[in-house]
């Protein structure tokens, strides 16, 4: 359906306006101007911030530069989360553009993973895809693909090539017609106020008696607090790719169309704005 293809394109080409400001305590030779960038929602911070690094290195001495890292309002940003997820989770209801602070020293070892090169990002990305396919197809589809197909998925993401990526990714979105959907839906629910990083459980898109599960069913099963009852005001927003899908949206359709390139549905549950 034309609608579905539009949805896929809109998800892929989503952007977040970001303002990168150098941390004030960093040592500079002269004043560093902020750097503005439209970050792709579906990519990863360390993959798309080469220009940021180049911009700020112009005003710094080489010996003062270690691994670059980012924070938002004091929270170090995990580069291995997709950018769109980081924004929805931390800065959904703040003013645009998204203000990120750039650091070159005092890497927070306990909060962030190191990212020495792009191959680390590739390894992380591919491992997420394989985990998702293990849930969807018992890894049959991903294992049937050749190495060059895997490479094509990564290159498509790295070079922002929608057609190249989806030429391969559509195979991972197929399912046997008699099943009606994937075996289990690969999803992760992120909460702002929680000690654990995310909720991930086994959940079938179609029940044993053929009933299609919705986003609401998933939340009721896995995190019922997200759904407020009718009488009380909405406490939480359930955000995927910066939008709030209706709770009756089928989970299978969401997994096929609103997953990130790593084939996971990253769902943020954030407090509703109290204005």
């Amino acid at each position, binding site marked *: 359906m034309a609608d579905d293809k539009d949805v896929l394109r*809109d998800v892929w080409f*989503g952007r977040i*306006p970001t303002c990168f400001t150098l941390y004030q305590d960093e040592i500079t030779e002269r004043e560093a101007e902020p750097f*503005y960038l439209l970050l792709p929602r579906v990519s990863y911070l360390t993959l798309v911030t080469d220009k940021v690094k180049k911009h700020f290195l112009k005003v710094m001495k080489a010996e003062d530069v270690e691994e670059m890292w980012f924070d938002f309002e004091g929270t170090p940003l995990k580069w291995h989360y997709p950018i769109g997820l980081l924004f929805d989770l931390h800065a959904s209801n703040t003013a645009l553009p998204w203000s990120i602070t750039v650091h070159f020293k005092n890497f927070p070892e306990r909060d962030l993973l190191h990212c020495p090169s792009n191959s680390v990002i590739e390894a992380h990305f591919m491992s997420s895809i394989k985990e998702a396919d293990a849930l969807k197809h018992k890894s049959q589809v991903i294992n049937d693909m050749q190495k060059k197909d895997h490479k094509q998925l990564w290159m498509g993401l790295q070079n922002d090539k929608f057609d190249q990526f989806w030429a391969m990714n559509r195979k991972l979105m197929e399912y046997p017609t008699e099943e009606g959907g994937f075996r289990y839906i690969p999803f992760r629910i992120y909460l702002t106020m929680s000690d654990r990083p995310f909720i991930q459980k086994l959940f079938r898109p179609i029940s044993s008696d053929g009933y299609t599960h919705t986003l609401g069913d998933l939340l009721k099963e896995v995190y019922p607090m997200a759904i407020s009852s009718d009488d009380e005001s909405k406490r939480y927003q359930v955000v995927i790719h910066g939008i709030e899908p*209706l709770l009756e949206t089928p989970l299978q359709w969401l997994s096929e169309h609103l997953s990130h390139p790593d084939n996971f549905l990253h769902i943020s549950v954030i407090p509703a704005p109290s204005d």
Partner: protein
Amino acid sequence: MAERRVECSWKRHVGEQLKQRDRVQRQAFEEIIHQYNRLLEKSDLQAVLSERYQSDKYDFQNRHDGSPGADSSRSDNLQQEMAQMRIRHQEELTELHKKRGELAQSVIELNHQIQQKDKEIQHNEAKMQEYQRQIAELEGECRELRGQLQDLEQANQTLKDEYDALQITFGALEEKLRRTTDDNQELVSRWMAEKSQEANKLNAENEKDCKRRQAKLQKELADAAKEPLPLDPDDDIEVLAEDSGKGTREASPNRPLSRTPSKRISGQPPQSGLLDSISNIFGRRPGNSYGTSPENTETTSGVCADVRVPSTALHVKI
């Protein structure tokens, strides 16, 4: 119908929400950020250029410091120099543009080469996999053959052992046979010896017996011969004539009975009667003999029969 409307509603909702999001987050900022980055580039370039201009300007100023001249001429010179510098920088700029084009070209070529190399690598990897598969197959075959070889060697060894065992058994049995044959031969020869001994003994005994009988007979004959016999010459001739005429036909019992009591005792030539009795003892038929006595018929039954010398003398046939 209701289902499709419902389906449309949430799908439409998602589509609309995405468009809304893009309007707010992307489109509102896209142009501004783009222009900002262009300005940033320009200002960076200007900063670099002005630095260079400054340094060049100072160079020129230092070189021309010593020359006298009016301010205006100095400023004219300055302007000239600055124009020259600008020209030079323009040339550099065009040079750099050209270089950038060339580099872009080489990037394309290198990409193309990389693609080709990737293809080659894939091809080689495929070949390698094929070789590895063959190697695995051959290794499998090799293992199988080695296994078969081992089995055959074991079987061979087993056969050899059995053969050795059989060989030993055979030797033992041969030995046993030889010994048994020897024993058998020894036993047979002993038995034969004993039997021949027995036979010899019997023969010897028989001979002894015969000799005894013979001796006894001889003795009796000798004894009988020694007996004086009264002889009557008339009787003698009579007897002899009758004998020659009808001797063979007539039954012997009648004749002897008629004659013997009187004549026989009177005396016959002892030798003739003895000869007859002797020959009768030793197997002559009653038909052949003349004047046989009843004792004679009895005595022809066997060699070992009881031998009796007749009590009376008998007719003797010549």
